[in-house]
């Protein structure tokens, strides 16, 4: 792939030096090399991104002996340059002479793995992991593993954090003596003085456990996990939670109870809310990892506690998991557990004091109806949905409305429609335009579920009212909404219910409303089809070409350009063309401009 870049670049730089004796192909490369040290970051970045071209021109030998040493020392550069460099070096194996020489890439990546910028370090580690696979087992022990050791025992925590991500890639491919050393290094980093390194170790613990032999998982990893999970800093403890989930997937069921569960139980009741939050956030993964029995005995009470946690952030995270947790409960006892243990907590959350908790719940609660079935939904869930539909916080109501489809499948929407309507109307008239915008976006969905009759009766007037909203974004969304409704209900419905109202606005004294007519026509012409467009819309557009406001007139030109493709050619020639020609000689510059543009786009000239 890198070979293909070379010639392309040569053309790109464009040699203007005809007649020079020098090798023309050298020039663009020379420019790239010089720009590696240009003052302008953008040019340096550009050169780094074409590093493969430079290497290709230099050949493998000079790349190894000259280019890489230079790059190793250029870690003073800006982050974006270093980031690009770290990424490039991950794909450099062929350019230094293949797997045999891949270890030459280690020095520059090693220095990049010690810079202070996390994204650069992470990219360097990613590239190191990538090229580790290209090392032969011997090279891995001779070159790669010593590098990991150097990083792991570096003076600064930046290098030690980087080391944490490299153990798991070399472990499977080294001899058992080296394996023992690697395990020892990892252990040391898990009890490092700085919390930054312990965090890095904690976040890689799960990954490292996966490549270890089961006996070492049980002996080494469990003790490290237990230690990290009771670290004095909660920033470390919270990362141990995820490791715990990974470790649980590796262990046989009978060991989980003694080796992992005590620590996880302790995490779910940690003094720090951030740790409990993490448990709540990872709850579904945890549930899958520990299996049905432990779920029934341990996780259900733990989940109940998280739903009742004193910190709102934790309750919100747990509330988000309600549906997933219930779904994954063992089938034989699912309904009983939900009805007796989970639902009582959910009921309390419906009237939580914190709106984020309520809105998190509202985004998943409807999903419970498919799990519990029709009768339970009507009896137990429906009152909750209705309560949330009346919630003071618009976000809660919106979340319920946006998930109506789940309920629709189970009990049909009719059960809800009486309460739904006031909720929708209230949101439709909310003082915050973003709330109005959000409900408009759910209209087509609602219309589909409620059916055309209900819509005509109750919601149509709302949709029309949005067309004259004082916020442009709402008028624009309302226009788009009309189009989607027509797609759902068909052209005939449009002709009877929407089009007359839209066209009526063409006579509105407010020019902004007159323009809305044009925007609606733009959106509707295609879905309504040629007949309605020609017969009903076009005359109104023509009439508006005489509007006294120039903005309306040039929007007429734009509309004609837009609806032109829907019209037949005869109509275009005999009716549209004269109107556009008249507009093209308008006094107003913009009207002229858009009329001319329409003429040329519609090829009427």
């Amino acid at each position: 792939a890198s070979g293909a870049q070379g010639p392309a670049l040569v053309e790109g730089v464009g040699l203007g030096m005809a007649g020079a004796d020098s090798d023309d192909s050298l020039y663009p490369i020379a420019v790239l090399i010089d720009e590696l040290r240009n003052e302008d970051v953008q040019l340096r970045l550009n050169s780094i991104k074409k590093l493969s071209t430079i290497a290709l021109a230099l050949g493998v030998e000079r790349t190894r002996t000259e280019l890489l040493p230079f790059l190793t020392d250029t870690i003073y550069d800006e982050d974006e340059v270093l980031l690009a460099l770290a990424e490039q070096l991950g794909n450099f194996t062929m350019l230094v002479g293949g797997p045999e020489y891949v270890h030459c890439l280690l020095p520059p990546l090693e220095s990049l793995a010690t810079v202070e910028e996390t994204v650069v370090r992470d990219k360097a580690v990613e590239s190191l992991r990538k090229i580790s696979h290209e090392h032969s087992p011997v090279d891995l022990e001779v070159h790669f593993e010593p590098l990991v050791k150097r990083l792991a025992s570096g003076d600064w925590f930046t290098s030690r954090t980087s080391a944490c991500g490299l153990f798991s890639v070399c472990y499977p491919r080294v001899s058992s003596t080296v394996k023992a050393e690697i395990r020892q290094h990892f252990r040391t980093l898990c009890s490092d003085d700085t919390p930054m390194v312990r965090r890095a170790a904690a976040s890689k613990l799960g990954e490292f456990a996966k490549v270890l032999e089961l006996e070492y998982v049980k002996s080494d990893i469990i003790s490290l996990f237990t230690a990290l999970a009771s670290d004095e800093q909660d920033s470390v403890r919270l990362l141990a939670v995820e490791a715990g989930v990974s470790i649980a997937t590796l262990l046989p069921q009978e060991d989980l109870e003694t080796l992992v569960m005590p620590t996880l139980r302790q995490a779910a009741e940690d003094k720090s809310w951030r740790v409990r939050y993490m448990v709540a956030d990872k709850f579904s993964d945890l549930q899958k990892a520990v299996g049905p029995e432990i779920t029934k005995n341990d996780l259900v009470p733990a989940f109940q506690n998280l739903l009742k946690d004193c910190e709102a952030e934790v309750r919100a995270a747990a509330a988000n998991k309600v549906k997933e947790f219930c779904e994954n409960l063992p089938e034989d006892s699912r309904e009983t557990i939900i009805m007796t243990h989970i639902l009582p907590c959910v009921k309390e959350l419906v009237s939580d004091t914190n709106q984020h908790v309520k809105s998190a719940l509202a985004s998943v609660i409807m999903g419970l109806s498919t799990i519990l079935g029709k009768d339970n939904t009507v009896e137990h869930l429906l009152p909750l949905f209705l309560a949330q539909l009346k919630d003071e916080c618009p976000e809660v109501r919106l979340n319920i409305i946006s998930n109506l489809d789940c309920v629709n499948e189970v009990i049909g929407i009719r059960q809800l429609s009486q309460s739904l309507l006031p909720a929708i109307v209230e949101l439709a008239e909310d003082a915050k335009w973003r709330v109005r915008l959000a409900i408009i976006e759910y209209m087509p969905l609602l219309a589909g579920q409620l059916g055309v009759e209900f819509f005509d009766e109750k919601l149509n007037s709302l949709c029309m009212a949005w067309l004259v909203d004082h916020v442009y974004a709402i008028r624009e969304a309302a226009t788009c909404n009309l189009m989607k409704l027509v797609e759902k209900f068909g052209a005939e419905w449009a002709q009877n219910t929407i089009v007359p109202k839209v066209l009526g606005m063409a006579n509105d004294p407010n020019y902004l409303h007159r323009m809305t007519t044009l925007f609606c026509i733009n959106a509707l012409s295609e879905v309504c089809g040629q007949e309605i467009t020609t017969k009903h819309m076009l005359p109104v557009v023509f009439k508006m070409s005489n509007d006294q406001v120039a903005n309306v007139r040039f929007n007429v030109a734009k509309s004609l350009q837009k609806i032109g493709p829907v019209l037949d050619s005869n109509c275009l020639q005999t009716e549209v063309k004269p109107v556009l020609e008249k507009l093209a000689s308008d006094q107003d510059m913009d009207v002229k401009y858009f009329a001319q543009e329409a003429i040329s786009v519609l090829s009427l000239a």
Partner: protein
Amino acid sequence: MGEDGESPKINHSFLRDYVTEADVISTVEFNQTGDLLATGDKGGRVVIFQRETESKDESEELGESGEYNVYSTFQSHEPDFDYLKSLEIEEKINKIRWLPQQNAAHFLLSTNDKTIKLWKVSERDKRPEGYNLKDEEGRIKDISTVTSLRVPVLKPTDLMVEVRPRRIFANGHTYHVNSISVNSDGETYLSADDLRINMWHLDITDRSFNIVDIKPANMEDLTEVITAAEFHPQHCHLFVYSSSKGTLRLCDMRESALCDKHSKIFEEPEDPGNRSFFSEIISSVSDVKFSHSGRYLLTRDYLTVKVWDLNMEKGPVETYQVHEYLRSKLCSLYENDCIFDKFECVWNSTDSVIMTGAYNSFFRMFDRETGRGVTLEAWRESSKPRAVLRTRRIYTGGRRRRGDVGVDSLDFTKKILHMAWHPAENIIAIAATNNLYIFQDRVNAENL
């Protein structure tokens, strides 16, 4: 110091002769090793001093009395204007905090009233050489002479100190930032303004978490402002903030995301007999510092410094009078605004001595063991080599000794507000308006 080993400088100072407002030092801070010292001034500049290392071969007695010399100077903040509120934003550096060292470079946070910046201070001693298309002077070469490619090589060069802005944490504060404090977790820090405390991640500039908000719904109900805040040196979940009402609140971030409810509140019951118009003003805490051990808190109010034990909320365990003789002068100090001066206070490396500033270029040190205090003066004579820092006495009645200073002759424009103590040694840095004094060794308890 190599050229004159017999008479090493024990004290050192950086004196500027022409005083301009911009030169007034507004903050002083040592880094974690004490090898670097940063000052910020009202002109938005940061000056970093580095301790010379040649003094390793000094005799035992003198210890490592390396001098501090200017290492780097840079403009951290520029004057700015908030167009929405029609307010000028001063460039004055309110606080500097060093980050724990993470690689060969050094990092510090500096803040003015609104914007916090993270700076990287690094050294470069190599320079790339060799262009393909031009020579080292920048003259374009004749293309026809370029017959082979040349990769630049790095050649040793004179040491250059580079300072580069790494991150700018803007728009986090509506009111004036008074404190920044780096967390022991190494990835977050807090910043406090008059009404709110925010927590930032050092890698993320576009969002911060509000952890304390004391802004009342109606600003007319405002009775209290935050004056300073600091993280616990070891426990990443604990921080303390002080208020204009003289209280300290210790918050535990483990309990909840928003720390409006404190875990502990430290306050001293007011003595009703001493109550006056100025009571509230002089009880306002101007600075709060955790001891290195993390067990105690040091606070400064207008007339006293106090040491609090984290385990005792009902009152300070030690109270030291800084300049009690001013109690009768509060009225005139109120008129000239001096009563609102915000003095800082610091611990020595072993938490056995505390230090704080006063007027007339005086500063005070208190030995916690004996409870005795000493008044010292930062003046040019004592910054001369081998000079001994002299103690001063304020004449407040009784037998007047030679050299005593009368309360009425104190110069209230010469205030010592900002100071720092080396994290491991007896070295102090004192900012006296535009001058920085660094005193070494002579400031230990035997002087008290």
